[in-house]
């Protein structure tokens, strides 16, 4: 129940009305609705079954946002429960409760939930930790469940599962691995790393390494700059907890036990973090093949969580209820201030949308929808709201053109404006940021009679060059 309340606190932001404003913007909603997405976005490549489940929930009366958020709640709670079960099985109930709480409060996982916002990524962790729990189980039925989940995870997320699952089994395996020579496990992990080194050639896009300070920086985006921020912090509490555990282990004069999950966990975590931060490491490029630096940091955090959770095992006094409650409260508080995700504005997710591509960069700006207000007759003012989302960072400041076109194709009126989010042009937008831009267009009294068409597109003011629309053309046309 204690863990359940921690979980409740950490899924509470999903109870806020409106869909989460993440770096994915409305893309997950569009995927639930079955709209075609630019193939370069992570949501387009995300696990299809998650969105299938969401569509199933929609049939029960949920909106797309509610369905996805409900699935996120389940995935987050399953993830925390899975880590708890893994540690509980290995070291007892107190490490289990602590591990679950640590997982809920991991900054890297909170970032995945509420900043990156790819639903499949959250489900990956829920499935993989339960797969690790099953694979480390001492009972046959448990191992069967583990094998099934592992197979499912490998099919759905092959590379990330290939890295994460063996590591979690090795570090959190506990009794399952106590009778297996540890060296085998270490060799297995080294083998997995080698596989991934080979995978680097699969990745065409070079991956830039993180700065080491990013792993330890407490900086967290303010709600108003949420999607422009991001965090790669490992988390002070699991890190310090794991350090204390390591110190405890080395202070004990039991060499025979030293090559254990604690040391293995530390080795793995340091390896993963080095992978993320060392620019000259040959494996750095491969980071993108396994989900990017964020994945490496998150996996290192989970591994450190499993190490830190052993604190009550090494200090039996901390397994007493009062101390354990305090530890759980401390852990829960450590990530509490990060739970401030804003909500997306209400976006009309009509069928009419268009993406515009930057030169050599693919789809960059998504026009999500257009809303008109006012009578579209000559002599009147038409108010138009356009909803934009940035798909990838752009270096230029683009301008939107909004044309009112007569039935004969002649231009009746126009309202071109620099695309601005507040005072920020597109080069300052965050990926996933949904921007609402309003236009007031006065139709001249002498304009030819309607019905009119609204034509919207994007161009660079310096060169007047229009961005091409994915699929052909350079503008979206909607009847006014």
């Amino acid at each position, binding site marked *: *129940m*204690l863990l359940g*309340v*921690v979980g*409740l*606190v950490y899924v*509470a*932001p*999903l*109870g*806020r*009305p409106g869909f989460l404003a993440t770096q994915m913007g409305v893309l997950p909603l569009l995927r639930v609705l079955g709209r075609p997405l630019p193939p370069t976005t992570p949501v387009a490549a995300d696990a299809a079954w998650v969105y299938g489940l969401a569509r199933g929930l929609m049939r029960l009366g949920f909106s797309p946002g509610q369905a996805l958020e409900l699935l996120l709640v389940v995935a987050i709670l399953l993830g925390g429960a899975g880590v708890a079960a893994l540690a509980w099985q290995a070291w007892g109930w107190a490490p289990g409760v602590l591990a679950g709480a640590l997982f809920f409060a991991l900054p890297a996982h909170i970032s995945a939930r509420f900043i990156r916002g790819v639903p499949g990524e959250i489900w990956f962790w829920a499935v993989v930790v339960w797969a690790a729990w099953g694979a480390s189980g001492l009972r046959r039925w448990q191992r069967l469940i583990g094998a099934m989940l592992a197979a499912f995870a490998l099919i759905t997320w092959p590379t990330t599962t290939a890295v994460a699952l063996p590591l979690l089994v090795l570090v959190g395996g506990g009794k399952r691995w106590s009778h297996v020579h540890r060296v085998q496990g270490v060799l297995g992990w080294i083998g997995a790393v080698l596989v991934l080194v080979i995978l680097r050639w699969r990745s065409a896009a070079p991956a830039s390494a993180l700065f080491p300070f990013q792993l330890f920086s407490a900086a967290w985006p303010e*709600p108003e700059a949420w999607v422009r921020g991001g965090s790669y912090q490992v988390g002070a509490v699991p890190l310090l907890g794991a350090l204390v555990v390591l110190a405890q282990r080395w202070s004990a004069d039991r060499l025979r036990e030293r090559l254990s999950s604690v040391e293995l966990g530390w080795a793995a975590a340091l390896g993963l973090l080095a992978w993320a931060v060392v620019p000259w490491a040959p494996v750095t490029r491969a980071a993108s093949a396994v989900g990017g630096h964020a994945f490496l940091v998150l996996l290192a955090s989970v591994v450190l969580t499993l190490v830190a959770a052993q604190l009550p095992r090494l200090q039996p006094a901390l397994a*007493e*209820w*009062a*101390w354990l*409650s*305090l530890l*759980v*409260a*401390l852990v*829960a*508080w450590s990530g*509490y*201030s*990060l*739970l*401030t995700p804003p909500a997306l504005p209400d976006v009309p997710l009509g069928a009419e949308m268009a993406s515009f591509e930057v030169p050599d960069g693919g789809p960059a700006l998504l026009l999500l929808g257009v809303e008109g207000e006012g009578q579209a007759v000559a002599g009147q003012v038409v108010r138009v709201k356009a909803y934009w989302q940035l798909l990838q960072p752009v270096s230029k400041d683009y301008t939107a053109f909004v044309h009112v076109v007569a039935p004969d194709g002649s231009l009746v009126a126009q309202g071109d404006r620099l695309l601005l989010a507040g005072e920020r042009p597109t080069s300052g937008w965050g990926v996933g940021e949904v921007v609402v831009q309003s236009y007031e267009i006065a139709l001249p009294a002498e304009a030819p009679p309607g019905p009119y068409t609204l034509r919207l597109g994007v161009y660079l003011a310096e060169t007047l060059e229009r961005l091409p629309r994915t699929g052909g053309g350079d503008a979206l046309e909607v009847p006014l």
Partner: protein
Amino acid sequence: MSRRWDWPYALLVLLLSVPAIGPTLNPGYWWGAHDARHSVYFLFEFDRAVQDGVLWPRWSPDFAFGYGYPFFNIYGPLSSFVGEALHLMGLSFVDAVKVVFALSVLASGLAMCGFVRHVAGPRAGVVAGVAYVYLPYHLADVYVRAALAESVALVWLPLVFWGFLAVSTVPTPGRVAWAALAYTGLLLSHNGLTVQATFVLGAFVACVLAWRSFEEKGWPARARTALRLGVAAGSTLALGMAVGGIFLLPWVLEYKYVRTDQWLAGYYSYREHFVQWWQLFDPRWGFGVSVPGPDDTFPFQLGVVPLLLGVAALWVPLDLWGRRMRLAFVALFVLFTLLMLEQAAPAWSVLGPLLSPVQFPWRLLVFAGFALAFLSGLALARAPDSAVLAASLLVVTASYPYVQAEIRPPAEGPVSYAGLMRFQQSAGEMTGSSIWVREIPTWSPLAEVWVRGGEVTSRVDYGALPKGVQVASRWANSQGELVEYRAEHPFRLAFNIAYYPGWRAYLLDPETEEVVRPLEIVPHGTLGHIRVEVPAGHHLVLVRFEDTRPRRVGKVLSLVGLLIVGALLLLEARNRRKGVPRR
């Protein structure tokens, strides 16, 4: 339930509470907080009456742009009494208010510590006391809401429960006296909160009586015990009400003479201020107000550390009474948390008359937080001192970011009549009216005088005087005025004072200033002002705010109540000396 007070533990609570009052030690004041200006100007008005020799002020002369309002007749005056004492000792109004805030915070921690210590021992008391001080809502009460009366009431809430628990288990004369005084303290601090607290207390005492009587064998013995303890608890409540009679009776009987539509409708309608469940866990802190919908910038969080400690308390092994208290406070927490949520709207419709004075459902955080702090303490009831210290430090650390106040200069200028008028005009607050007022004023000639830097020396409505009448004010203060006039014909003398029961007028002899006869007051106009028919000639007219029958009876009740309390305390002292065993 040791009788010995564990000073080191109490001292620890006091020390750990000091950071919570940090902003009160800063120069300046959080003038932008919701009721910050109210708190200062309530004291300003209270002081006006005290300076005019009124020992129990009821009439606030400068509310409603100088037309006046019986504010302290319907609003618990205890915080103003404490503030006034500090002001008379030389503190400015603002400093006095800040010190009352600080004292209330420190005292609340000690009170909670004492209560929980009585139930589950000193270690639990320490954590509960610290958790109570650092509850996010408690800090918001002080630095975001600047709700002085509620902050002072939070001192008495644990004391009332402590007292009634003691009386309902082992009643002694001393316990009855102290519990009654605690109840009076709560009543005089915040009468609205006292209404809800009394119902909660009633349910709590009923549970205690049931548990206590079922410890006896056989139904007759149980019935006797329940009756004996029930009479003790009931008598304590009655005594508490009697001691507070000076305020309680006029409030109950004369509340109907003030308009409440201003404070219970529109923005103040409870329907617009339910809490959404996720807001109870939302870490965002803000200094804004509660608004309809989810975009409140006021914090409604329960506090993650007290919440988890409260949950942890469910598994702590406790003795029988500890388990019973845990059950009672879990029920209190769950009930009041649920009542704050939108889903509880049907319950509010049913319990409207009882709950609507709460104004905002989130104000029930007082009870939810009280219960949570209690349970937080229980979580550490069997823990070693080191864990208690760690828990207390964690509670302080977790809430420390919320110990902040927006110190700023007063938008309406320094504390003065002009500042008060500007505040009333800009905020539409402190404009309470009696039921004779049909049009709530938005400005007044008196306010105009003050804002222009002048001084109001008379509240006679000179503009309404007929021609040929000579009127001069001999003296005027916050509670009345003596007017001398010469007129050839009878006429109506009007005052810029809103009518409320207690205002009386007399015709006086101009030479001896002795009362010739009373004059009838007729409230007139849309502003419900005082007007008297006066005869022709040279006379004096005295208008004065006096005690009505409920106020006089209330005073007698309080006096009798205090005498009984004194007698009970003497009896307790005698019993202790003689070693009379407790039952």
